[in-house]
């Protein structure tokens, strides 16, 4: 069901934990639906120097969180924002169709963390914040759920 890369990131997730003095924190998901993700970033200039995550969810949720943190570490904010759930899923050699929504969580978490940072820095206002994806796990998207 899962690729070896997914299993690798599930069994040895990179960058687990929290950053107490994080510059930006993103939290997405909903425990009702069985997945929550929290991302912490440290930013220096416009480079993401450190990143950590916590995830409540399935193996795909954990692996995509882990891969997403790997992908953005050392990148500029703009580079990080260019990362989509598909980038993350591809980097994991793909995900089963019914698990694609878990990778959306990682993308949304990332964005939320970067925007939190920008808001704290006064770079954007509340209104300018991008809306996260409709969260598939709780918004009945039958296609995704039934594969």
């Amino acid at each position, binding site marked *: 069901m*899962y690729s070896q890369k997914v*299993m690798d990131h*599930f*069994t040895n*997730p990179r960058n*687990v*934990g*929290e950053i107490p003095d994080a510059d930006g924190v993103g*939290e997405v998901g909903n*425990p*009702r*639906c*069985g*997945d*929550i*993700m*929290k991302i912490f970033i440290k930013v220096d200039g416009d480079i993401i120097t450190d990143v950590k995550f*916590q*995830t*409540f*969810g*399935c*193996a795909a*949720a*954990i692996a995509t969180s882990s891969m997403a943190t790997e992908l953005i570490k050392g990148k500029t904010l703009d580079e990080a924002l260019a990362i989509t759930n598909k980038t993350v899923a591809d980097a994991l050699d793909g995900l089963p169709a*019914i698990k694609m929504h*878990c990778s959306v969580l990682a993308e949304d978490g990332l964005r939320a963390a970067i925007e939190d940072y920008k808001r704290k820095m006064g770079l954007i206002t509340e209104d300018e914040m991008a809306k996260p994806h409709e969260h598939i*796990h*709780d918004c*009945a998207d039958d296609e995704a*759920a*039934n*594969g």
Partner: protein
Amino acid sequence: MDRKIYMDHAATTYVKPEVLDEMLPYFTDKFGNPSSIYFYGREAKEAIEMAREKVAVAIGAEPSGIYFTSGGTESDNWAIKGAAFAGKKKGNHIITSAIEHHAVLHTCQYLEKLGFEVTYLPVDQYGLINPDDVRRAITDKTVLISIMTANNEIGTIEPISEIGKIAREQGVYFHTDAVQAIGSMDIDVKSLNVDMLSLSGHKFYGPKGIGALYIKKGVKIDQFMHGGAQERNRRASTENVPGIIGLGKAIELATATIPQRREHLTRLRDRLIKGIMDKIPFVRLNGHPTERLPGNVNLSFEFIEGESMLLSLDLKGVAASSGSACTSGSLDPSHVLLAIGLPHEVAHGSLRLTLGDDNTEEDVDYVIEILPDIVERLRQMSPLFAEREGELKNV
């Protein structure tokens, strides 16, 4: 990791060698169509009638009340749709519970679309249905009560004897899904006042794809599978002869050893529950503490999600199951866990371990040994656990 421990016997079991041995000749030499009058047909016919007898004996029925089907799902579909359509003149109301298997629930939901009315009775925190609720739900339009003998997820054994009595008094047909109960408890359709009963071979070391529906003599239900005249004109399709032979042998073996099985499984079950709960905090037992199937362990581990637990266990060679939505690919976690009142996130963290004849004390101890690390590792990743720890520190 070469160790393999199977603890998902409620999902399916392997076929016991004695069962397979009896089936084998019917694939090749004795392959005849039981409806045929020549030699090959007669030998197949005799064999399936012997199997019918065995199924009947196992549940205290007459052989003429046993109809072979393709499994528990077909038996449930047949009983419910059959009784609903046949009872249309009397009424259109069905009573069932919120914790039935999907084979019952989805059938009832389909019937609702076709204009039937269904009452889904609630259960208490242990998953028990209150017989008084059944009595109160009956109207003069009620044509069927369908309540399971024992629940497949949390193992709770329902008071079907009392429900049967109420149904009989009120003149309403009573169907029970006994798919999980066969081999774990004694069942006698007569003393239980059961009009219809579903069972499925692969839950008690028989083959998959074969089951039976018991229909009490005189009960009026429409046919479900239309076609040839097999099964005394009530269930069409060429008989799955090897499957039927396997079902007969398996139910004979399973019901002959109920006391030993109960003793063995109950001991392992209680050891497993105690072992895990002693070692891991924030765990709760789902289902009834004592009125439960001897092989069923269902626990919720707070702050973590079930699929990741299953995969971690699988990496250590242990096969189990979970009520998490992430496992099933559906949107919600188990309807059974929600019905007993678990919050969504706790239902997501459920783990079901169902024991079988082949499990040993060492198997149980191995799971007790490896599970704490798995849970701990997942909790360390969980934002919910981090919050909880934060709260605890702040107290």
